[in-house]
């Protein structure tokens, strides 16, 4: 057995970086923080690659030929009950290692890119410190050995996301967006927490290996009907999925994601495209055995939510003009597809194709989506705007960006042989096996994806010639090199025989392209591209006409179907004005009033009885004598009874 305990350093190095840069960063020049953070990331990137190599190619497989799932490191962190305790450790299995690769790669690229992008920004040091914190949290999340550790890091990525979205803290919109992101995900996390409580109470453990093992207590306990005809385990899984849905921006908890684009673009690339937002997918995948064996209803929920979110977001993406928002809705749509894939999946071998497809798409998506964001960053950096109407014809000024952006667009549109094609194809194949209707929904999403991506592409790089104040130019080497490296990933990632490494039961299996699915998908994608080209390559009025023709629907889509307004109504109007304010009033006037009332009554009584003390000697004597008489009468009464 190879010793993997060094993997704990993958967690510790970013943490140390965070502390060191955070506390002492301002003693040095800003660039030092950037270099230090990047160097740390480089080290753990290498470590992750080594780990992956050793795990997949060197480590012996288990007796049944599957990849092992084991604790590389573990320590007791907190004792709760006799059976429940929170541990901190590193769990290695195919998906956690896959995630390690994704996170460290993208994170490293983003670090390098940021040195260029953030150059001269105020708070450079703060940026890198928080980025390290995020890397630490995200890595901790994926290697979590138990669900509580995952929850802990889950919260931590939430806060790093909060800090990074609100990086430009003097901008009110950024502050509002960060707040929104945190609170919405926090609300979802409440569901996660309740789910954990229910799950752990039924099973008596937090441990992933026990929970998802063959003899998991989750399969046998908590099966009784609890509420609305569903079992405890189903409810707990639905609650846990609520947490995942919040972080992964599934409908209706997605509202924070578009706003989160207020953060610096590298952050959007890292957190809101490649890593944190897929945590929900990862969570479901992590607990997949429980979903499939103990809570199939919850898995159906995952499927429907995923499918709906993907089409919902794709429609909105077609109507947006802010390039980062388009990408954000695209992200939401793609994650919806991953969720959908998990939802349709079965367990074991080819049955578990959806599971594999989901992970595969997660993997490829990370490359081309972060590439898209970084490209968008380069564009914004060049033209100082993120509204696509103010752009056009940029291919002349930004050749490298143009090329890489195009690669990413083709990849996400699902055109072979780029990465997106392979993973999307598997998803559609898995979907087709489960539900034909949803398969066609995803097919439409696929087409829409191609359309809005190329709408974006053509509007930016072709279209009308816009006059710029300053001639746009490429960023520094720090920015262009990561773009090129990532585009290699976007080009080639699809060729990895993913099912040989990642599968629902950790047993490798073979997959082949199903032409019956691949060909229609490619055709749909191409259709989308062609339409986009017709509409946007030259400046035309066709899109506007169509937009107007669709009337209310397109308007609603443009306004993101008014979900934000609903939330705003609930929070601002109902909670703030109709709950909190009355409570504050109630507290002041009723609760406190009753306390003050007691004092008032005492005072009043005191005032009323003052006339007894009239100063008249004879009245004193009268009271005296009446006292005696009263007591006598009282005792007469008492004695006669």
């Amino acid at each position, binding site marked *: 057995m190879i010793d993997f305990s060094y993997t704990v350093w993958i967690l510790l190095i970013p943490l140390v970086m965070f502390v060191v840069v955070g506390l002492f960063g301002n003693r040095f020049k800003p660039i030092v923080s950037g270099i230090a953070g990047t160097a740390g990331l480089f080290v753990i990137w290498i470590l992750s690659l080594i780990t992956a190599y050793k795990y997949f190619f060197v480590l012996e497989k288990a007796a049944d030929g599957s990849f092992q799932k084991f604790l590389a490191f573990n320590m007791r962190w*907190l*004792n709760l009950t006799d059976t429940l305790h929170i541990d901190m450790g590193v769990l290695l299995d195919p998906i956690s290692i896959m995630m390690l690769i994704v996170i460290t790669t993208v994170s490293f690229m983003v670090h390098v890119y940021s040195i260029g992008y953030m150059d001269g920004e105020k708070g450079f040091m703060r940026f890198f410190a928080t980025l390290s914190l995020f890397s630490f949290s995200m890595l901790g999340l994926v290697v979590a050995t138990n669900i509580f550790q995952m*929850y802990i890091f889950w919260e931590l990525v939430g806060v790093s996301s909060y800090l990074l979205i609100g990086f430009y803290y003097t901008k009110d919109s950024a502050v509002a967006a960060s707040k929104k992101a945190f609170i919405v995900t926090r609300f979802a996390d409440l569901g996660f927490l309740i789910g954990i409580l229910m799950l752990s*109470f039924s099973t008596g453990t937090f441990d992933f290996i026990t929970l998802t093992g063959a003899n998991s207590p989750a399969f046998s306990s908590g099966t009784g009907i609890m509420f609305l005809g569903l079992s405890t385990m189903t409810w707990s899984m639905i609650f846990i999925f609520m947490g995942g849905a919040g972080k992964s921006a599934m409908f209706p908890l997605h509202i924070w994601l578009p706003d989160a684009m207020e953060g610096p673009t590298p952050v959007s690339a890292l957190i809101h495209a490649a890593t944190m937002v897929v945590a929900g997918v990862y969570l479901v995948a992590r607990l997949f055995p429980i979903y499939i064996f103990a809570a199939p209803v919850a898995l159906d929920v995952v499927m429907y939510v995923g499918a709906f979110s993907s089409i919902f977001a794709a429609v909105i993406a077609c109507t947006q003009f802010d390039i980062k928002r388009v990408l954000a809705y695209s992200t939401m749509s793609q994650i919806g597809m991953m969720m959908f894939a998990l939802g349709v999946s079965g367990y074991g071998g080819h049955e578990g194709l959806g599971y594999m497809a989901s992970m595969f798409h997660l993997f490829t998506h990370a490359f081309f989506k972060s590439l898209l964001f970084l490209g968008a960053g380069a564009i914004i950096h060049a033209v100082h705007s993120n509204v696509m109407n103010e752009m056009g014809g940029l291919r002349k000024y930004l050749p490298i960006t143009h090329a890489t952006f195009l690669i990413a667009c083709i990849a996400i549109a699902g055109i072979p042989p780029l990465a997106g094609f392979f993973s999307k194809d598997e998803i559609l194949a898995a979907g087709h096996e489960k539900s034909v209707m949803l398969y066609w929904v995803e097919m439409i999403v696929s087409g829409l994806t191609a359309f809005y991506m190329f709408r974006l592409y053509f509007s930016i790089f072709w279209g009308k010639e816009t006059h710029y104040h300053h001639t746009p130019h490429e960023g520094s080497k720090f920015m262009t090199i990561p773009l090129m490296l990532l585009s290699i990933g976007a080009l080639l990632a699809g060729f990895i025989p993913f099912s040989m490494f990642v599968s629902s039961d950790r047993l490798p299996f073979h997959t082949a392209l199903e032409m019956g699915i691949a060909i229609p998908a490619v055709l749909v994608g191409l259709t989308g591209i062609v339409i986009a080209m017709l509409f946007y390559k030259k400046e035309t009025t066709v899109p506007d006409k169509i937009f107007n023709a669709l009337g209310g629907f397109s308007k609603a889509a443009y306004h993101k179907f008014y979900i934000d307004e609903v939330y705003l109504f609930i929070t601002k109007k109902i*909670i703030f004005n109709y709950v909190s304010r009355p409570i504050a009033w109630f507290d002041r006037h009723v609760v*406190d009033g009753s306390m003050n009332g007691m004092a008032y009554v005492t005072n009043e009584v005191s005032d009323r009885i003052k006339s007894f003390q009239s100063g008249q000697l004879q009245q004193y004597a009268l009271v005296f004598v009446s006292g005696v008489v009263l007591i006598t009468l009282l005792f007469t009464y008492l004695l006669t009874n």
Partner: protein
Amino acid sequence: MSILTLFIIIPTLTVIGILFSKSHIQVKWVAVVGMSLQLLSAIALIFLYLAERRAGNLDEVLFVQNNVWYETLNIRFYLGVDGVSVAMIGLTALVVFAGIFASWDIVDLPREFFTSLILLATGVFGFFISLDLFTMFLFYELAVIPMYLLIGIWGSGPRHYSAMKLTLMLMGGSAFILLGIIGIYFNSAPSGGQLTFDLLQISKQTIPINVQLFLFPFLFVGFGVLGAMFPFHTWSPDGHASAPTAVSMLHAGVLMKLGGYGCYRVAVFLLPQAAHQLGWIFLILATIGVIYGALGAIWQKDLKYINAYSSVSHCALVLFAILMFNQTAMNGAIMQMISHGIMTALFFALIGMIYGRTHTRFINEMGGLMKVMPFLAVAYVIAGLASLGLPGFSGFVAEMTIFVGAFQNADTFHRVATIIAASSIVVTAVYVLRVVGVLLLGKIKNEHFETLPDAKWYDKISVVTLIFGITFIGMAPLWLSDMITGGLGPIIHKLLAAAPILN
């Protein structure tokens, strides 16, 4: 003489030293030296305690000092600590230490200020180490009274009203406690023998159930008032709002913990049957308090009010956890006390420092302070994050322990209460982020604020000490949790014996 007597002797000597100090500076330094010694003794106590336990000492309480005081009434000067009290002492020492630095700016009557502050601390220390109900009560009242002067003289706003209200409400609570204590005393030997105030000895008796049912509400409400139990919490917002910085810190950080600790150590421990029978009433109140305080905080505009309502919510969580009657939840309750103690002290320290610079506490009038005073702002963000239960800070550990513990009660009533209480974490996030957003981020609203200075060295000592406290516990909670669990044994045992059906 046990090490515990130090915790009374040191503050007493400090007070004497302060009274004989010549200048204002000297007063402060005497206070600093005294309270540093106190902090060191507290740390030493923690280590000694852990060492003793590791050496296999299984006594219920350690470092016992037991002297007869009033022989005929069997009143004793009886000191001793278990894991819970050691933890509380650590908390107190830390907060007091930070409090001294936070009040470095006091110019008006500093001698009196520090005297009162340390007297208050003495009361708190004495309360936590006493094992005799009489001495416990004595220290309890000793801790409450200096509050009046501290708020009344050095406070702000409607300080006279607030001070009076706070004192009267707390003394009202203590009147209830007194009745409860006397009632327990006269039933402390149900099978004959000498009556006693000795907590441990009483805990080994079973007080007749009808007596328990009579006394329990008095004791629980009495301590609950100090623990800001709904609906007896209204002294807290007013009191905090008017109090000077260090007093708010000590008050919310430590004094309010006396309430929770008393509920746990006296009401529940000595009257377990009644606790089982009547606990549900107070559980409802506590649950209401958790969510009510949090929702109430959203609308407030004054920083101190926000934090006061937040304290109501957090302290209600302590009572909530105590009333869950199992080891995990109680452990969480104690941790929540410690966590909230440090955290809220940090909050009040920062609010005080910000107020000292901007001269307003209304969040609408401020904004963008991050730019002007980054140290204080970052510390405030940290405090806020700790308050909303972020992992890595003590609040998370405590809250999660409470929720997991509370969830072990499998009936619907407790479940619903738990879920309602748990939902407060969202509401907490709302108000914390609202404050952070309006106060620290965004643009600077008042140009006068552009030139305000950041934290001074003494501010930094105070803030860093407290931040260290919350992060240390938040990162490595195991020792604390285990230490507390060790102290919980007898009470859990007693509760289980009281209700065999439980669990």
